[in-house]
C-alpha cells in the first residue's frame, strides 16, 4: 500500500467513523485496523493477535493477582501484621512477575526469532531463512510490552475488554513507523468516541500533506544520490562525495521517518486522536543527548522508562556507583549509572534497528558519546559558568548545533554503510582524499539526481529548514496557516497539495524512452 493509499484509507475510514453511532466508533477503528492489517499483511495477522491476546491475558492476570492480594489485605485489615502484609504482597508480586516475564519472554522471543534469525545466519555465513516479518512487529511489541510493564508496576489498570486492547495494539496508522504509544495516553483516546471537529480534520489533513511532502518530495528524491554514494566501489568516490552522501542520508533519514510520522499523526488527527510527537526538529539539537530527546522520541522515552531507569536503579549499578564515589568522586559516581545506562540503551537501540555489525557499532557509538558526555558533564558546567558570556551567545549556540550535527553524521556513516570498515574508510576519505572536483552537475546526474530534481530538492529543503526554524522559535506554523484569510490559506493549501502531487516521487515513474518504441 502506497502512502497515498494509506492516506486515502485513513481519510475514508475517518468519514465513516463520524457516521457510525458514538458507542460503535471504537469498533469501527478496530475493524479498520484489522482490515488494514489483513489486506496489507494477512500472514502476519496471527502474530499481532497472539501478542494482543497474550499481553492482554497476562496483564489481566497480573491485575487480578494484585487486586486479590489487596482485597485480602483489606478484608483482614485488623488481623494482618505488617510483615504478613509484606509477605502477602511479596508472594503476589512473585506471581505477577512470573506472568509478566512469561508474556515478555514469549513476545520478545517471537520478535527476536522473526527479526534477527536472518541477521544471525549472516554472522555464520549461513543462507538466510527468509522468515516472514509481520508488519509493525517491533512497534506493536514494544507498545504492548510497555502496557504490560505499566500494569505490573501499578501505573495502569488492566483492560478487561480484549477487543479494545486489540485496538490499542493494532491501531493502523501506527503500524508502519510508530510512534510507540503509551497506554495511559493512547488507550482512552482510542476507545472514547470523538465528535466531528472540522479544525482537527483540517489540522490532520495539513499534517498529512506536509508529511507526504517530506517523504515523497525530499526523502525519496535524494534517495538515489545516497544509494549511489554508499554503494559505489571503494575508492571510486572521494571525500566530497562521501560528505554529500552522508548529508543526503541525514536529510533522507529525517524526511523519510518524520514525514511518515507526520502522515500517521495527521491520519490519527482525522479521528480526533493525538499521537505522541515523535520528532521535534532534531537537527537543531545542541548535544547528542538533546538530539535523542528530539529524534524518535517515543522509542527514547520507552527505553528511558523501561530500560534505562530500571537498569540504572538495579542494585549492582548502585553498588558500582558507590564504589566509584570513593575512588573518583561524587560527580563521577552520579554520572556513572547514566553513562552505563546510555551504553546499554543505545546498544539495544542499535540491535533494534538490526543485528548487524554496522547497527551495533552505530548504537555503541551513540552510547559511548553519551556516556563520555555524561561523565564530562561537570567539566562542561564548570566551563559554562566560567565563560557565561561566551556560552550564552547565539554564536556558541550555533556552534553547539553544528557540532551535534557533525557528531550525528559520524553516526550515520555507521548506520548507512553495510560494513563498519566501509564507514571508517568513507570518513577517512573526507579528511585524506576530498576530491572536490568530482562534484559536478554531471556527477549528480549520474547519481540519479538530474539538475531539475536537484533544484527541486534544494528549494524544498530550504522550505523545510525555514519552517523548522520558525517552529523552533515557537511559531505555530500549522495553526497560523489555518488562521490566514481564506484566499491566502487556500492558495497555500493548494500549493502544498500540488507540490506533493507533482513533485513527489510516487507512482511507477515516467520514462519517455519507454514510450518511444522504435528508438530501441
Amino acid at each position: 500500500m502506497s502512502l497515498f493509499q494509506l492516506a486515502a484509507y485513513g481519510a475514508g475510514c475517518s468519514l465513516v467513523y463520524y457516521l457510525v453511532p458514538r458507542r460503535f466508533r471504537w469498533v469501527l477503528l478496530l475493524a479498520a485496523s484489522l482490515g488494514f492489517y489483513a489486506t496489507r499483511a494477512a500472514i502476519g495477522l496471527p502474530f499481532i493477535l497472539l501478542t494482543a491476546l497474550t499481553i492482554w491475558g497476562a496483564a489481566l492476570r497480573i491485575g487480578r493477582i494484585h487486586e486479590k492480594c489487596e482485597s485480602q489485605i483489606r478484608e483482614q485489615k485488623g488481623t494482618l501484621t505488617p510483615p504478613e502484609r509484606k509477605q502477602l504482597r511479596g508472594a503476589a508480586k512473585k506471581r505477577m512477575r512470573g506472568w509478566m516475564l512469561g508474556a515478555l519472554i514469549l513476545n520478545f522471543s517471537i520478535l527476536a526469532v522473526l527479526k534477527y534469525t536472518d541477521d544471525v545466519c549472516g554472522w555464520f555465513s549461513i543462507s538466510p531463512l527468509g522468515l516472514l516479518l509481520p508488519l509493525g512487529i517491533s512497534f506493536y511489541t514494544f507498545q504492548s510490552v510497555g502496557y504490560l510493564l505499566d500494569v505490573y508496576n501499578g501505573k495502569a489498570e488492566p483492560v478487561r475488554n480484549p477487543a479494545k486492547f486489540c485496538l490499542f495494539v493494532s491501531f493502523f496508522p501506527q503500524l508502519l513507523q510508530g510512534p510507540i504509544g503509551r497506554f495511559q495516553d493512547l488507550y482512552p483516546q482510542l476507545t472514547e468516541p470523538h465528535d466531528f471537529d472540522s479544525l482537527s480534520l483540517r489540522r490532520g489533513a495539513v499534517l498529512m500533506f506536509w508529511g507526504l511532502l517530506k517523504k515523497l518530495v525530499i526523502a525519496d528524491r535524494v534517495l538515489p544520490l545516497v544509494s549511489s554514494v554508499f554503494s559505489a566501489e571503494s575508492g571510486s568516490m572521494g571525500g566530497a562525495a562521501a560528505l554529500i552522501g552522508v548529508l543526503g542520508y541525514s536529510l533522507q533519514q529525517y524526511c523519510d521517518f518524520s514525514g511518515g510520522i507526520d502522515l500517521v499523526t495527521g491520519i490519527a488527527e482525522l479521528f480526533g486522536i493525538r499521537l505522541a510527537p515523535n520528532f521535534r526538529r532534531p537537527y537543531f539539537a545542541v548535544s547528542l543527548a538533546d538530539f535523542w530527546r528530539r529524534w524518535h522520541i517515543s522509542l527514547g522515552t520507552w527505553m528511558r522508562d523501561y530500560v534505562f531507569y530500571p537498569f540504572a536503579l538495579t542494585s549492582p549499578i548502585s553498588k558500582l556507583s558507590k564504589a566509584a564515589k570513593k575512588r573518583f568522586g561524587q560527580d563521577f559516581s552520579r554520572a556513572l549509572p547514566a553513562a552505563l545506562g546510555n551504553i546499554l540503551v543505545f546498544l539495544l537501540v542499535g540491535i533494534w534497528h538490526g543485528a548487524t555489525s554496522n547497527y551495533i557499532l552505530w548504537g555503541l557509538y551513540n552510547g559511548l558519546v553519551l556516556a563520555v558526555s555524561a561523565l564530562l558533564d561537570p567539566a562542561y558546567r564548570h566551563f559554562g559558568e566560567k565563560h557565561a558570556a561566551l556560552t550564552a551567545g547565539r554564536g556558541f549556540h550555533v556552534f553547539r548545533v553544528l557540532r551535534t550535527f557533525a557528531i550525528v553524521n559520524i553516526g550515520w556513516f555507521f548506520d548507512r554503510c553495510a560494513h563498519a570498515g566501509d564507514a571508517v574508510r568513507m570518513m577517512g576519505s573526507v579528511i585524506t582524499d576530498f576530491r572536490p572536483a568530482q562534484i559536478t552537475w554531471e556527477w549528480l546526474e549520474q547519481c540519479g539526481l538530474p539538475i531539475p530534481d536537484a533544484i527541486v530538492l534544494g528549494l524544498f529543503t530550504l522550505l523545510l529548514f525555514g519552517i523548522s526554524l520558525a517552529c523552533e522559535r515557537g511559531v505555530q506554523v500549522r495553526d497560523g496557516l489555518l488562521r490566514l484569510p481564506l484566499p491566502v490559506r487556500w492558495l497555500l493549501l493548494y500549493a502544498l497539495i500540488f507540490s506533493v502531487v507533482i513533485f513527489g516521487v510516487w507512482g511507477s515513474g515516467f520514462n519517455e524512452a519507454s514510450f518511444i518504441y522504435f528508438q530501441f
Partner: protein
Amino acid sequence: MNRFKGILTGTLFFVILIALLAGLSSLFEYKESRAKTAPLLERAGQLDVLFLGDSHAYSDIYPFELWDRYGIAAYNMGNYNTTVPLSYWMLRNVLDTCSPKVVVVDVNLIWEQAKLPGNSSDVHLSLDGFPLTLTKLDALFDLMDDPAVTDNDGNAYPDLIPEFIFPFIKYHARWSGLTSDRAKSAYNRELGGERNLDVVVPSPYELISDAAPEQGFGFVYLRRLIQLCQEKGIRVMLINLPYPSRNEHDEQLYTNAVQYLADEYGIEYIDFVYLDQIVDYSTDCYDPDSHMNSSGAWKVTDFLGQHLREMYAVPDHRGEAAYTRWNSDYAIYCQDKLQSLREAEDPRIFLMLLSDPSFSTVLLVPKDSAVRRDPLGMQLLQNIGRRHLMAADMYDAVWSDSLMPFEQITQPADTACLAFVDRTGPVPSVQECTGSGTLSAPFGIISLDGSSPSAEIRGTQDSTTLTLEAGADIAAAVLDRETGQVLYERSLIYTLPQ
C-alpha cells in the same frame, strides 16, 4: 448556518481541487494514446473494419489508403507490443460504441505467454485513451490479475492498476521534461496508422512449416475474441503481417498453429509471412526483421483492400454525405505525406516515398546518375511503378510488370537521360510528357538527349517543365493523380552509401 457555510466552503475547496487535478492531469498526460484513440471514438459509428494487432498492424496498414481506393471506412487500432489479450480488451472497449462488420486481427504476438507485455508504457499507449468505463475497469482487473507478472521495471501489474485508472499517477513525473510542445494535445491524422520512413536491408529469413500446440493466453483470448465477434455478428479475419521472420521466439510455430484454430471456427487466416511475394523485402523493410516501411505498407494495404471488398463485401462509402469528412481528412493526410517527401533527406527514403499510390510521379534520371550504380537505388526506382496483379488464388498473386523494368533502365547505354512517368492511377494523370527525346514505352519511359534534359508535364489544367538541375542525379515531380498538377518537384544528389 455556520455548519451550512462550513459544508459549502469545504465542498467548494474540493471542487476546485478536483478541477485543478483534472486540468493538470490533462496537461501532464502523455498525449499519444489519446491522439490514437480520439479519432477512433469520434468515428466509431461509421467504421466497418477494425484492425487489431501489435506494431506490425500499426506500421503495415494505412486505413486512409483503403478509403481512397476502396471507400472502406476502417481504423487501425494496432499498437506497440499489443498482445492478443490486450487486443481483445481494446476491442471490448470499442464495441461499447462501435459496430464494425469485419475485425481483422494480426496474430504476430500469439506466441507471447503473458497477458501483457513487459513494457507497461506500451499498455498505457493502448489503454489510456479509452474513457474510464466499467468495460475498461473489467479490462484492467482481468489483464492485471496476477501479482507474479511484473513489468520491465519490476512493478507487479496489479499494483499498477491505480495508474491505469488515473494515469496522472504515472505522468505527474513528466514535470521536468514538460515543454509547451509536449503539453499540447495530439491527434492521429492517419486513422491509427503510422508511416515508417526508412529503407533497410532485410535480415536473412527462414520459413518453417511445423506448428506448436496451442498454449498461453494468446490463444485463449483469440478464441474469446472470435466468439465475441461471432456472437455480435462481426466477421473475423486473421492475418499475420509480412516480415522477414527469423523465427527467433519460435513464433512461426505458433502462427502456423493459428491456421488450425481458424479452420475450427471457419474463418479466414492469411499468413503474409508465407506470402512473401506481396511485398518486396529488398525495398519494403523499415527494420531488418520486423516492420514494413511505407512502400511495404502501401502494398499490404492495397492487397487487404481488394480482399475485403471482394471477399467480405465491405461497402464503399465514397460519395456518401455522411462521410464527407473522410475526404477532407484524406486531403490533410495527403498533405502530410507530401510534407514527408519534402523533408526526406535520405535519397533512398525519397525514392521509397515516390511509390506512394496517392500521387503520380515523373522522374528524370541522367545517364551518369549515381543511382544507376546503386543496386538498391535501381530497385527503388523500379518499385515506384509497381502494382499488384491479383490472381484468383491469392497465393498466385504476382508483381505487376514494373513500369520501369530493370532491363529498360540498365540497357540503354546510349541514352543520355531517362524520364519515367508513373501513370498507373485510376485516371491517367499525366496527359502528356514530352521532351527532346523519344517516348520509348507506352507507359512511361522517355529517352532524352541533351545536356540539360527537361520534360514538359501537361496536366489537365496547366503544364510545368521539370528540369534536371546541374549536377543532380535525379529530378522528380510529384503530381496530383487526377489533374497532373505538379504538387512538388525537386532535384537531388544521390549519395552512394559508404
